[in-house]
């Protein structure tokens, strides 16, 4: 600020904080694309399937535009210096997800969820509402630091919920849902992800010096003291328990991975990464050795065609055989480079969960390699903006929280997309913003809200220093 007003320093300083543009207009321009592209895609699906522009085009387009508009105005008002890319990226992904969910609603083979798209639009609205709430009431992300241990308790509570008898729902082997009578199902793990990130950030900010400095050197690695191993062991045990009782490899991997990332960032000690990898390997192999559900998933990953044939033959050997992994691979392969075009593929052959866990396969078949790469790059951009926010944040808590949330987001995308594409064993998780599912959409909009808040704080110009009397004294007095 002073550089602009003080001619003597004008040429020496680089960029004064006053020069930081808010980039809100950039965001608005990008949002226009993020709304228009899904609208064209929606019209495309209607033309391909029913030879007519879908009758819901107007209301759908208005709905998406309204969400984007509300999000934008809130950001403009309450977080004017927030990152300009995140909101358009999330809107675009959400819009494309809605299009593909609507396209799968039109499928004649999938009759069990005929009206998922309107519900998803409602969930998206709830998600954006949560984003607005976060931006309005969370004036400064550092407030969250106060709730470190409450977050931990909340996260554990949410994680345990699916195990409560009568409340949890076992859906195709993974117990990660809870049933709320009259409202449907909820995946508490999605919300636990954010609560855990808050807890880890708060906890590590306090303990990072102890964890980083008090260590012994052994074989080139700094080994932590035994008593400092406590927290990582606790988180590891929790992840294993999630894996054992909820048989959900994905969530387990996600939590543990997020913790390792944050631990590494907090302590700058590579040894934690080595430890983390060792522990997750031991945990995964150990649990897989006695948990048949995990074994089935690994078998299906190694030999999807055999699993398909077992499923087709109706083999009953106490294990649930699923043809989905192979069906997803066929969908990707049949899409090829450019895809069949929206509405013209047969990805609905995947059957159950075609519009949630497996939605990327529909992108693969109908938009091809080009489309999937574009989607993956969009996710990459969100993660990149998140890490950039962490870099720009001025306080360690904000840095840790931002990198934890972005890292978790990246891991989730990797676990889901990698599972559907056969890169790693399949786990029941949803692709953020794109897949059908209320919990996932709402939680991820909240996640974006927190990242926007951190980036707003990070990019906001520092408050002007109070004018000192000395400054007055040294002012140059020009002769008149």
């Amino acid at each position: 600020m002073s550089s602009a007003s003080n001619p003597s320093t004008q040429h020496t300083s680089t960029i004064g904080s006053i020069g930081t543009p808010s980039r809100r207009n950039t965001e608005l321009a990008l949002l226009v694309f993020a709304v228009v592209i899904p609208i064209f895609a929606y019209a495309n699906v209607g033309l391909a399937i029913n030879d007519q522009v879908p009758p819901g085009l107007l209301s759908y387009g208005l709905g998406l535009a309204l969400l984007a508009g509300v999000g934008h105005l809130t950001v403009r008002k309450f977080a004017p210096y927030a990152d300009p890319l995140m909101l358009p990226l999330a809107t675009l992904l959400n819009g494309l997800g809605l299009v593909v969910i609507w396209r799968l609603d039109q499928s004649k083979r999938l009759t069990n969820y005929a009206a998922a798209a309107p519900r998803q639009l409602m969930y998206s609205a709830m998600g954006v509402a949560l984003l607005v709430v976060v931006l309005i009431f969370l004036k400064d992300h550092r407030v969250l630091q106060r709730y470190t241990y409450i977050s931990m308790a909340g996260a554990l509570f949410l994680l345990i919920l699916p195990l409560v008898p009568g409340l949890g729902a076992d859906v195709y082997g993974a117990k990660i849902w809870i049933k709320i009578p009259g409202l449907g199902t909820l995946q508490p793990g999605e919300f636990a992800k954010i609560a855990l990130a808050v807890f880890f950030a708060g906890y590590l900010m306090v303990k990072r010096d102890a964890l980083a400095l008090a260590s012994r050197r052994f074989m080139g690695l700094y080994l932590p003291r035994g008593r400092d191993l406590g927290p990582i062991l606790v988180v590891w045990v929790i992840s294993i328990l999630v894996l054992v009782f909820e048989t959900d490899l994905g969530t387990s991997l996600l939590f543990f991975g997020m913790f390792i990332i944050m631990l590494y960032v907090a302590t700058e000690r590579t040894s934690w990464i080595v430890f983390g990898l060792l522990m997750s390997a031991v945990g995964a192999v150990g649990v897989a050795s006695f948990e048949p559900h995990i074994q089935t998933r690994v078998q299906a990953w190694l030999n999807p065609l055999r699993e398909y044939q077992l499923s087709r033959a109706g083999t009953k050997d106490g294990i649930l055989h699923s043809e989905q992994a192979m069906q997803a691979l066929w969908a990707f392969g049949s899409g090829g480079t450019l895809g069949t075009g929206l509405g013209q593929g047969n990805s609905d052959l995947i059957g159950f969960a075609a519009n949630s866990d497996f939605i990327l396969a529909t992108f693969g078949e109908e938009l091809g390699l080009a489309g999937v790469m574009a989607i993956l790059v969009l996710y990459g951009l969100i993660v990149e903006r998140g890490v950039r926010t962490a870099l720009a944040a001025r306080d360690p808590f904000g840095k840790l929280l931002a990198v934890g949330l972005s890292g978790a987001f990246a891991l989730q995308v990797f676990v889901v997309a990698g599972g559907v594409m056969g890169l790693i064993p399949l786990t029941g998780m949803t692709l953020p913003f794109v897949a059908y599912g209320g919990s996932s959409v709402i939680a991820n909009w909240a996640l974006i809200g927190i990242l926007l808040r951190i980036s707003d704080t990070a990019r906001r110009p520092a408050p002007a220093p109070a004018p000192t009397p000395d400054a007055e004294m040294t002012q140059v007095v020009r002769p008149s």
Partner: protein
Amino acid sequence: MNKPLRRIAIFCGLLILALLVRDNWIQYVQADSLREDTNNRRVAIARYATPRGNIIVGGDSITGHATTTGDFKYKRTYKDGAMWAPVTGFVSQSYGANQLEYIEDGILTGNDDRLFFRNTLDMITGKERAGGNVVTTLNAAAQKAAYDGLKGRGKGAVAAIEPSTGRILALASYPSYDPSTIAGGGDSDAEAWKKLDKKNNPDDPTLNRALREVYPPGSTFKVVTAAAALENGLYTDADEKTKSPLPWIMPGTTTPLKNEGNIPCENATLRAALQYSCNSVFGKIGSDLGNEKMLAEAKKFGFTSEQFTPVRSSASVFSDDMNPSQTALSSIGQFNTAATPLQMAMVASAVANDGKLMKPYMVDSLQAPSLDPIEKTEPEELSQPLTAKNAQILQSMMETVVKDGTGKNAQIPGVKVGGKTGTAQHGENNSKNPYAWFLSYAKLGDGSTPVAVAVVVEDDKAVRDDISGGGLAAPIAKSVMEAVIKSKK
């Protein structure tokens, strides 16, 4: 904290990169093998998504298509399906395809690489994709004559060839089935399919007897033995007396080779021996020539190899490890000798074509959906089992058979017909009814031979004595030849 943050950024970038690489692997590198995987239902969906091209006989298609509900848009229909089944095979939404429908599937569905350019053009111009046509060499009138003839007699098969080119004119099998009944994917198709299964149907209607069943050829094989005698110089003329004692005891045994009835076979000429169908004469010829020479001649006629018309025919059998008495029995079409109807038609056709055996084929040309030709089959010489001179000697012998001998039922006024009857025994101790055989060719006044035909009838109901090639099979051969001659005019 910024150094680890940058590393985490790189790590996240690597995660995304791994996904991008994997995506390229499955959607580019492996895309084709996944797309064309037969387990991938899209293969079947695409196959039935466009009207299938037709199989054409004499300018008319013998196939069509109908729309169905469900995943598959079109199914195949057949006109006179039972009559044409040995030619077309079937294509079914549930049970795949076989024979011509299977072999020419690429052209018929329009997926063939040779149609790629046209398909791309169609895609750009927005024309609906369609399959190409398969134009066959068959003769509708001859096929109908063959099928109707068999229908009146019971089980059997007919194969007819144009000797000068190898074009297949008729290919009938009875009992047959209508492939239309199993073309769809519904319950009635499943039921029909079950009924056609050999386990549930001893008649085995889906068996293509003309190409895939081998029968002992009986006395019709004597044409091959006669050719071997002439080719190897054992005898040089049709009217030269053979050295044939009666009774003739088979070498190494004490058993005489019996003739059917009291016929003049002692030292008979080749002409007379063929006319009366002397087992003793031809058995001795086979024994005199030996296994090796007989096998060599049989091979020249096409025995022991499969023919690809392009539908595969079974290989006809003539063994290579027989002693002289077994060779004698084999040379009169008994013992191990077995032939498909197509094989015996090839024998007749080689003799009729002055010794040249043409490769039999049933696909004349392939057409693009626009009816532009893609490929045309050119006649191809397979071998020369006998010289032109010997072929003419054999022709005169076979013409005697029809004029004065056992094949009188095949006489056609104004046409020179050469033929040979056969009655092949089969079953334990010949307990089952023998097969009635007839092979023949017709020679027109202008010297051309438009047709050679082989007929086999296996009739369980007929009285044993009635079964003789001349009685049961010759009339069918005659009507097939007449139909071909008539359509030539």
